[in-house]
């Protein structure tokens, strides 16, 4: 199974709406491959779902892969897609909106369902999806959702968006630590028993993440992927081989379907 040597990485500057899933999809990669390929960014952002516009991400080049197949036959190859997910917990005054019917349209596709006992809805989402419209008729709620526009929690814009989602802020996403934002931070700090400073300190940022980003019943996110390893030379080769098997999008690996061949 010969392969050509990988070319130099391509640098990409993150813009609003990007996340690891959408960038991986756009470049024919699995999100873990892309995330692990950028250890500095991974250490900086920690959450692959929330990148900051301006972040620079290195895109590994694709490598050709060859598949041996008999001639005089017709073969069908299927490219496997990896959808992203969208999870949302709906609450009213900190109580879950459980068992509420919801309708979410994303790029013309209609999803619907009922929130679970934690007020959560979950759908598979095309990684490139940018916007959606959510309606919860029973609660008279209606939201325009911008997928991938949530900045990291240690940025002012990221904090503003989280505070807005949690009901503490309504001054617009300006990225400025103005009076409205300070007051929202003060309210959030007071409501969660933190020292009320009005500053986006580490404790406040962590609490914001806990309250907004994380499943309350689960102790830690696993989306940072498996711990990065530092393989030796042989391991690198093996790594590539493993990736060849697992990362079908990275190497444009195609799956030959049984029973699809024709003479």
């Amino acid at each position: 199974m010969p392969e050509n040597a990988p070319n130099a990485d391509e640098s990409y500057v993150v813009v609003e709406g990007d996340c690891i899933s959408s960038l991986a999809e756009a470049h024919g990669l699995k999100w873990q491959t892309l995330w692990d390929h950028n250890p500095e960014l991974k250490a900086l952002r920690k959450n692959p779902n929330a990148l900051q516009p301006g972040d620079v991400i290195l895109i590994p080049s694709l490598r050709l892969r060859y598949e041996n197949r008999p001639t005089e036959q017709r073969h069908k190859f299927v490219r496997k897609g990896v959808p992203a997910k969208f999870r949302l917990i709906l609450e009213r005054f900190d109580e879950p909106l459980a068992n509420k019917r919801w309708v979410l349209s994303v790029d013309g596709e209609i999803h619907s369902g009922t929130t679970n006992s934690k007020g959560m809805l979950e759908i598979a989402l095309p990684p490139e999806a940018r916007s959606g419209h959510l309606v919860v008729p029973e609660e008279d709620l209606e939201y325009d959702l911008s997928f991938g526009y949530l900045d990291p929690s240690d940025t002012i814009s990221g904090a503003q968006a989280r505070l807005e989602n949690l009901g503490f802020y309504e001054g617009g996403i300006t990225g400025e630590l103005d009076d409205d934002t300070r007051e929202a931070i003060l309210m959030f700090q007071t409501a969660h028993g933190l020292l009320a400073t009005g500053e986006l300190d580490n404790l406040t940022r962590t609490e914001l993440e806990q309250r907004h980003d994380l499943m309350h019943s689960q102790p830690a996110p696993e989306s940072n992927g498996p711990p990065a390893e530092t393989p030796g030379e042989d391991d690198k080769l093996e790594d590539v081989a493993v990736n060849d098997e697992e990362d079908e999008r990275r190497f444009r690996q195609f799956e030959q379907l049984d029973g699809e061949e024709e003479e």
Partner: protein
Amino acid sequence: MALTVSQRRVMRHTQESNYVNTINVADRIAIHFVWFPGRHLLAGSLIDTLIEAPDAAGQERNVEYRWQRTGFAEVRRTMLKGTITLTLPPGGKGTLTVFDTHWEITRAANGVTLDASNTMRGVQQRLDRLGYHLRTPGQVSPGLDGTEGRITEAAVIAFQADFRPGSTGPASRLFIRGEWANNPEITPWLDSNPSAADGTATQTALVAAAGA
């Protein structure tokens, strides 16, 4: 359908993710403490910052208050511009204690807090909130009946007198202005003043002062 469609920024999640987005619907009531009546322009706002600004001794003058509603009680201090922000669901009721005064706060179930400002009852409600109590001595509840009588007329005249140009009013009078945070009809406290005892100007000032 909701009256307004809120914009929300959210994450897409990777397949193996334990991350989630959270939207909490928690309309909050912001209450500003100001010295009233009279003009106390600070930073372009009529809202007095004396409560939160340092006093002559350099001590911050945030005021401690207690907020209590069913199953919930807390003691906090006022924030920027002397603001108190409370969570109260539609139809909810609670007691705010500040300066040793108890204020019964009730939120209308449908979110509407005031009649239209161009109705007599709406004017009476605003005058009452601003401290021009429409009641006779000994009367417990204000006479917000939508009928223009002697008491309402007296309150309007007092309001106009307080807000005429150059008036400072009795600065020691304190009032509470309730503002429903998510009510789109709420207008900010305007740096404008009615110039005469003109009905239209008075009404505009009432809207600006008490909220829509």
